[in-house]
């Protein structure tokens, strides 16, 4: 049999006309271009405050916010609040994702359980999660328990629904393969169900994380004496928009960082989906 050694890139350059390279395709340009808009916004911000269109007690200039940021870091204030927020988020996230994954998998695999449980959980979804706040405060008091449970609830729902959908969407033909080849329950679960559901599970984890951030703010706005959400409330009541902006920026940076981390994890775990280059064979040429 004749084997042809064809690297994908070599073949592509032969047949596909190269798109002409534009000035903004370079690595440096790719890095720098996304910063144009934020830089413009900062400039406009600085300009408006400088021109006196907005009073600086309502909107402090950018350099003032940076100064406050530096001060808060130096005094150890910001790290303490950051740590408080992160700790809540981590506990709430774990308490939401682990039952979400477990219950989603179970209801996805056991039809009886799905019929019994899913309508109730679907019903729970109809209630906006924040509407639970008063009840949680009544039940668990204004304390760490209420906050963490509220975050957990917010995280649980998207994780549960995504995992349930992911388990249900596994190719039935692969399950039949597992049956015909007598893989057994455990190996079918480990080699077919888990990897088959993984893409959807990861989507759920990312959706859960973004809701986790939302609920950590909600929980800290309502009742807290520490955390970035507390900084927001405190900045408002003490008329310190610079501190509010520092808290907002911190949320933005942390949210983006945590999502990037999950996206990396996703790319590492789903390498089998990423590949494009194909292996060529001499089939049909000999």
């Amino acid at each position, binding site marked *: *049999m004749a*084997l042809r050694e064809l690297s994908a890139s070599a073949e592509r350059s032969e047949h596909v006309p190269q798109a002409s390279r534009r000035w903004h395709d370079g690595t440096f340009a790719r890095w720098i271009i996304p910063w144009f808009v934020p830089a413009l916004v900062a400039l406009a911000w600085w300009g408006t405050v400088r021109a006196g269109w907005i009073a600086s007690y309502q909107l402090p200039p950018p350099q003032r916010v940076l100064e406050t940021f530096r001060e808060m870091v130096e005094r150890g204030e910001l790290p303490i609040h950051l740590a408080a927020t992160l700790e809540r988020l981590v506990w709430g996230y774990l308490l939401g994702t682990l039952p979400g994954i477990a219950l989603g998998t179970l209801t996805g695999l056991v039809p009886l359980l799905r019929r019994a449980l899913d309508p109730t959980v679907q019903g729970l979804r109809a209630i906006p999660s924040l509407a639970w706040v008063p009840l949680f405060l009544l039940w668990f008091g204004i304390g760490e328990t209420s906050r963490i449970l509220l975050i957990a609830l917010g995280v649980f729902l998207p994780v549960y629904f995504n995992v349930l959908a992911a388990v249900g969407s596994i190719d039935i*033909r*692969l399950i*039949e*393969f597992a*049956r*015909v*080849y007598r*893989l057994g329950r455990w*190996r079918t679960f480990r*080699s*077919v169900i888990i*990897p*088959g559901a*993984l893409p959807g599970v990861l989507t759920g984890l990312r959706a859960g994380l973004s809701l986790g951030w939302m609920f950590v703010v909600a929980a800290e706005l309502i009742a807290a004496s520490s955390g970035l959400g507390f900084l927001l409330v405190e900045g408002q009541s003490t008329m310190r928009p610079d501190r509010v902006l520092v808290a907002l920026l911190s949320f933005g940076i942390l949210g983006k960082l945590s999502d990037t981390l999950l996206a990396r994890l996703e790319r590492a775990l789903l390498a*089998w*989906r990423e*590949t494009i*280059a*194909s*292996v*060529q*064979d001499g*089939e*049909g040429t000999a």
Partner: protein
Amino acid sequence: MSSARVRLEAIAIDLGGHTVLTDLSLDIPAGSFVALVGPSGVGKTTLLRVLAGTVPAQAGQIRLERPDDGSTPQIAFVFQEPRLLPWLRTWENVALVAPGRSSAERRQRAEAALAAVHLPERAFTAWPRQLSGGMAQRVALARALVTEPDLLLLDEPFSAVDALTRLRLQDYLLELWERFGFTAILVTHDVDEAAYLADRVILLGGKPARVQNQFLVDIPRPRDRGDARLAALRARILAALDEQAIDEPVRASRP
């Protein structure tokens, strides 16, 4: 590797409340190559599933045994599509079902099976989605082979690849069958394929379906695809199929 004798005595199969196959009796000698043909939807695939044990028969007896010791035979299945697990590399797909105590041994067996289907070595570590249709189906064949089957069930395994690849895959299959000696039961729509590969072509037809006709392919191997006897047999099978297919007549010259 050994082979399996397959005996079906008056079996009936119900699917979704109505009888698909009835009063079906077959005796397939160990080590033979049998092709099942018949109109679409006649229940050929269902019969394979019954033999694989994933669909129960409602009546009759199914006896699958190794003739040498009467033990239960090892069964492997090749589906119409490769059905490889996309998250496992080529060799891992095969090693997943390979016998063996250690993972090193299973990998070794997997690679031997992949070599037996003439897969180029650099495809061993590729992901399934990087393989062409013909290569992926060869991996599926290797995966069946690595289980050391006594009985190999094939459900239109070459229907989704291009014509030239199909001919090559048919020859690979024949080579493996001659080398390992398993019993092969092939469901196909391709009468050429059935006549070229099999010792016996069994025609299923009717509603509910039963065995309508059996054609012995008494032509020694290696066979020539242009052999006049093959052409004559093909015409006879097509004519018999034409009588079965009331809804979709097959255009064939009646003898």
